């Protein structure tokens, strides 16, 4: 997948999240892209590390800035307690039309991620994305309890009940996504 094809996937993700009522700040896009890339093996090529608020990609953050430079998206300030939203600009339409077959290929994956995460707050997305990270990167095949303990070790501000719920939900999401591959 080349850079512009990756950009249209992100543009479509942003449009879908917005359409479904998400405020769509950078954290939403970071986590939704992480789910999209990892659950469906979409070759977006972003490297995610576990940072303060769960999986985060500096490359994706840079790409979002590059997309602003290319007039594909723009920042839209929001009142407290929300950070700025990222919204698509008119110029993005022609790129999306041009790469319509890429969009068609990943459309159901984008819709799956949008539907699962559109109304989640940042803290909830952080827990779920960390649960996926722990499951895929650190402790595959480990018990739910082990992974929940792992989450609270990594993120001391998450309590054990929240961690268990996140692991349970992420296991369901992984199962659902595998059915759609």
């Amino acid at each position, binding site marked *: 997948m080349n850079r512009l*094809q990756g950009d249209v996937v992100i543009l479509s993700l942003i449009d879908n999240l917005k359409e479904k009522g998400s405020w769509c700040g950078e954290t939403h896009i970071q986590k939704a892209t992480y789910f999209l890339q990892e659950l469906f093996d979409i070759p977006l090529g972003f490297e995610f590390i576990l940072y303060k608020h769960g999986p985060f990609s500096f490359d994706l953050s840079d790409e979002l800035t590059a997309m602003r*430079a290319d007039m594909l998206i723009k920042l839209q300030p929001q009142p407290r307690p*929300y*950070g700025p939203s990222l919204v698509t600009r008119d110029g993005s339409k022609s790129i999306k039309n041009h*790469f319509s077959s890429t969009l068609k290929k990943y459309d159901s994956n984008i819709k799956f991620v949008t539907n699962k995460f559109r109304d989640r707050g*940042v803290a909830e997305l952080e827990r779920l994305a960390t649960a996926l990270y722990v499951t895929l990167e650190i402790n595959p095949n480990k018990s739910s309890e082990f992974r929940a303990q792992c989450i609270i070790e990594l993120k001391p501000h998450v309590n054990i009940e929240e961690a268990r719920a996140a692991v349970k939900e992420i296991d369901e999401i992984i199962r659902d996504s595998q059915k759609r591959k």
Partner: protein
Amino acid sequence: MVKNIHEIRDPIHNFIRLDSNERKVLDSRPFQRLRYIHQLGLTYLLYPGATHRRFEHSLGVMELASRVYDVITNPAILHDTVRDEVPQFNSFNHKYWRQVLRMAALCHDIGHLPFSHTAEKELLPEGWNHERITLEIIRSAEMESIWKEIKITSDDVAKLAVGPKYFRESYFSNWEAILSEIITGNSFGVDRMDYLLRDSHHAGVAYGKFDHYRLIDTLRILPKEEDGSIEPVLGIEEGGLHTAESLLLARYFMYTQLYFHSIRRIYDIHLQDFLKKWLPDGYFRTALLDHLQLNDNTILTELFRAADDVTLNGHDPARRIVNREHFKLLYQRNPRDVNENPDSAKAVFKAACDKFGLNNVRKDNYKQRGNGHEFPVITEDKQILSSLELSDTLKNVPIVAVDYVFINPELYQDAKKWKKENIQTIILLKKEENHE
């Protein structure tokens, strides 16, 4: 009597002070090597004053990091919601982290290759960058013995020196993330503050100057709230907002007018071409001793030799630098073309290579990393708001983006005519299947 505090004269910060233990880092071979690495590569070919080195920049970053630390950890101004994140003033931990921060700031560039950023990605083997070399040096036997004497650990220094993007071995606590932000942060990192001020001073341009005294005095650790999630980050008092605007505008102007000046960039590309031919297998060696032996002086000597001798590797790019026969700018991105095709320069480069041959065309591109325009601001009535709510300027600072295509000067007139006649066809987005 042995002098315990040493003072170094600096054109930007007047005096930079360090103690005898810190002086051992300064006197170490890896740090002394920075005296021979130009801060701005070959920029002095355009801006003759820009001959300053990484050595003095690193000292400046240490000085500014200490000033920021002393301001933001002052208990009298700590915001209640972040008080628990900060070690008690003057406690062992407070002093320990101040020392770690100073040493991390001093060593943050210690792994730089000759001529700084020139083509680092192309000239290092896969998986290497200057940050990785920095980590290796900080953990080398020579440096370990110094850290032991100072009573700090190399891992803490390394972690803050390269930041979370490059330090993957352990996670960053909120406190460590703030300290790392002091050095490398996108909004208020002192690395950037120092290089803007210093580069602007030496190059003789005014764009990079801003009131850093006022800016640092108004920095605060503030909670950044986002829909149920709160993290402590570097923010600012409302009174410092205009100086923050001037810092971020300074960055924009310095990048567009100096760092990405098209002639400066083509000299970097010719230097990269020379190094590709001159280095064994086309790559810098990453073994520590090899790294320490190479600096700008050793390479310049070879560059001049190659420029004078047609039989030596890298003769052509070397003579282009030495005789100032650099390639000329054929195309640069512009809003109209980018609207048509965000990768318009790539399309022009490809078409020009097809028409004039790969050896006669070069390209360069850069897009700003991160953002940095959004940070928390504490108002006079103690509300915490986003900088973007309070500043129209920050909302509208353009993103730095550069795309250049260069052509051999002997073909310049033909290429210009060709571009004028064909540009609209060239930048049209090709059918999607061709992009796979």
